[in-house]
């Protein structure tokens, strides 16, 4: 997993538990998708939600409505601008936005209602901005893919300042609204809940991403992520709705702690994170009072959130179920519908790695590249063996590769022998001059023909009845049999007895009258022993002549 590129910064300073959850969701999305996406989640905080909602003013009116928009990578720039403006706003201090920049690798969901940029009022806005910008920049190169944008603005949309901002970012809002609105509505009043779920998974992923930034960049990240996810899930669940917020804040703080460690190596000072944490806690306390207009909505939102948290567990279970279904879809990043995206998100957290790592080492298996490649190779071989099994008759019953290889070898040999025999037969047949024309006709015939000609079949049966041996031996046997029939020149083999008994051989023998000599010659190149027996004196050229088309000429010269 190379998610190093993704730079998700989780600022879990959200005053509301809701905010934290969405952040988590974003993170999860990031993990699944290889490409880092920018999922700026707009927390429930009034400021951020407003710009987005303004576009979706109708939606905004409903407190629960959250705007989810899948933003293509180009809009990342827009996000930057938004961030910068938000930072300005933060400076003004009117609004307490918690900046949430989640570098989400997943294109699908960033459906986090609150997880936007939550900059607590107390927190210095510029720091957030700088961090966010850097993060954004880092994420931008990767952002070529769609950036899912699910800012859930609903609760705080009422603020006037947001409306202005929203006007500025109307383009943003437009993009944002499409997916999330749809998704949110079906859920009705409980948007926060689902988002919360999503957020949990996503947060885990974000942590992973952070870790990757820190240079951890380990293949084992996924496992670690899973663990992290579990933690998050656990924490919010037990908490009562009100407590849940606290728990979320705690989680957020923990997240922030982890993040600073990662950031230290990269960009941000731990101090800034600490400030942010503080600001988060403050922000919670302050935000609720500070934004009176939003209070009502907030309260509603909180209730919803609490409900959402309560229902989280249920939803989580459901998510896992959904994940199995969504696995197939996980690959398609571009999927447009927000609903689908959400489903994907739900599904993704449990099994993000499969899409990108085709070969996974199970427990106890070596993970180095050599053993992985070896495993791939073995799988390939077994696949082809299976294919061969279908081709070779009688190979289905056989188990074991060695035995199967024997069967295959025997079959190939028998086929080659059949070709030799047929070519012999063709050479002996007295061709008519209209041969070519008839052949043209026959071509069409044998294409459609399914059954073997009855006259020839006994011969084939003889060929097959001959125990699979090596080519030279078989040839020897066959020729021996023929020779016996014709000239009694060779000792009788068991095989020859077979051929003798077979009427078809008898049929063929008459045209082959002169073969006593010819047959051994033919067989000579295959078997050295035969050469000694035959003593035709052809000597050295036979090998070459046999293989080459010019063999005939050489033979002729010698003869």
């Amino acid at each position, binding site marked *: 997993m190379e998610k190093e590129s993704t730079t998700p910064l989780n600022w879990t300073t959200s005053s509301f538990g809701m905010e934290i959850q969405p952040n988590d969701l974003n993170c999860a999305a990031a993990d699944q998708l290889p490409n880092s996406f920018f999922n700026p989640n707009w927390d429930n905080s009034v400021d951020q939600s407003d710009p987005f909602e303004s576009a979706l003013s109708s939606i905004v009116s409903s407190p629960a409505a959250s705007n989810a928009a899948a933003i293509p990578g180009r809009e990342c720039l827009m996000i930057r601008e938004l961030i910068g403006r938000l930072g300005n706003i933060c400076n003004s201090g009117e609004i307490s936005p918690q900046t949430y920049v989640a570098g989400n690798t997943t294109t699908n969901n960033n459906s986090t209602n609150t997880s936007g940029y939550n900059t607590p009022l107390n927190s210095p806005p510029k720091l957030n901005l700088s961090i966010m910008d850097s993060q954004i920049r880092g994420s931008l190169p990767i952002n070529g893919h769609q950036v899912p944008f699910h800012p859930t603005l609903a609760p705080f949309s009422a603020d006037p300042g947001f409306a202005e901002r929203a006007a500025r970012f109307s383009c943003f809002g437009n993009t944002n609204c499409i997916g999330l609105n749809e998704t949110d509505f079906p859920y009705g009043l409980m948007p926060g809940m689902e988002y919360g779920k999503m957020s949990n998974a996503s947060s885990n992923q974000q942590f992973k991403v952070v870790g990757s930034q820190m240079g951890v960049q380990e293949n084992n990240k996924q496992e670690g992520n899973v663990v992290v996810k579990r933690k998050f899930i656990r924490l919010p669940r037990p908490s009562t709705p009100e407590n849940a917020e606290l728990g979320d804040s705690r989680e957020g703080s923990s997240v922030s702690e982890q993040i600073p460690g990662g950031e230290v190596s990269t960009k941000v000072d731990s101090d800034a994170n600490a400030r942010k944490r503080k600001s988060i806690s403050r922000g919670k306390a302050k935000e609720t009072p500070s934004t009176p207009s939003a209070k009502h909505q907030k309260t509603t939102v909180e209730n919803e959130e609490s409900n959402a948290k309560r229902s989280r567990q249920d939803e989580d279970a459901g998510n896992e179920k959904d994940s199995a279904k969504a696995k197939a879809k996980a690959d398609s990043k571009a999927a447009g519908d927000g609903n689908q995206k959400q489903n994907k998100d739900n599904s993704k957290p449990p099994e993000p790695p499969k899409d990108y790592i085709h070969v996974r080492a199970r427990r106890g298996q070596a993970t180095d590249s050599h053993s992985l490649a070896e495993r791939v190779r*073995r799988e390939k*071989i077994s696949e*082809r*063996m299976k*294919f*061969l099994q279908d*081709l*070779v008759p009688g190979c289905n019953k056989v188990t074991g*590769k*060695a035995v199967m*290889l*024997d069967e*295959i*070898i025997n*079959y*190939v040999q028998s*086929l*080659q022998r059949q*070709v030799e025999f*047929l*070519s*012999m*037969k*063709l*050479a*002996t*047949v007295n*061709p008519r001059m209209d*041969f*070519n024309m*008839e*052949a*043209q006709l*026959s*071509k069409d015939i*044998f*294409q459609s*023909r399914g059954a*073997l000609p009855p*006259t*020839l079949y006994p011969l084939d049966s003889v060929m097959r009845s001959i125990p699979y041996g*090596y080519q030279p031996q078989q040839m020897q046997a066959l020729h021996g049999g023929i020779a016996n029939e014709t000239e009694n020149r060779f000792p009788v083999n068991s095989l020859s007895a077979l051929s003798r008994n077979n009427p078809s051989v008898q049929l063929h023998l008459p045209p*082959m009258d*002169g*073969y006593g000599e*010819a*047959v051994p*010659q*033919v067989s000579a190149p295959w078997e050295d022993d035969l050469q000694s027996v035959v003593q035709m004196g052809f000597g050295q050229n036979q090998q*070459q002549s*046999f*293989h*080459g*088309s*010019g*063999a*005939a*000429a050489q*033979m002729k010269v010698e*003869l």
Partner: protein
Amino acid sequence: MNPKRFSSSTRPSTTVKSRFACGFLRALWRINRQRRTSTSASSREICRRYLRVKVAADVSMASAVGSRRAWSRAILLRKLRNQGQNGTVRVRRMSNIPRMRKRNICGNKCTEEVAGTCQAEQLRKLVPGGEEMDMCNLLGETAHYIECLTTQVNVMRRIAEILST
């Protein structure tokens, strides 16, 4: 080689069959024309003709398949070499030979792990060009080769039937 291409390309189509039939019939016709000129029907003559027919069958099959497959390439290359020994054609050294040689090294190593070495070596000898393939390719080529051989046998059998009647 992805499985899709593998499965699709290993199944010789009817076009391969018809192409082989055409090519083989033409070669057969040429051989028989020569024989007609030389009226002697001695055993040596027949043996010589047998070898020619055999080679013609192999080569026409390989050319019908084309150069996509390693085994058909090997047959065609062998034919070219033999012609070169006769002095009729100068063999052009194929550029991909050293690369395949290199693969052979690891192929031998891998073979020992997967299946008995002796079986793999036998298979290598049977499949044209198999000496230069690793186990994966060897199995794939074997599958295709078997299918082509079956079609070849069917066509030749049919031709023989028609000619003999």
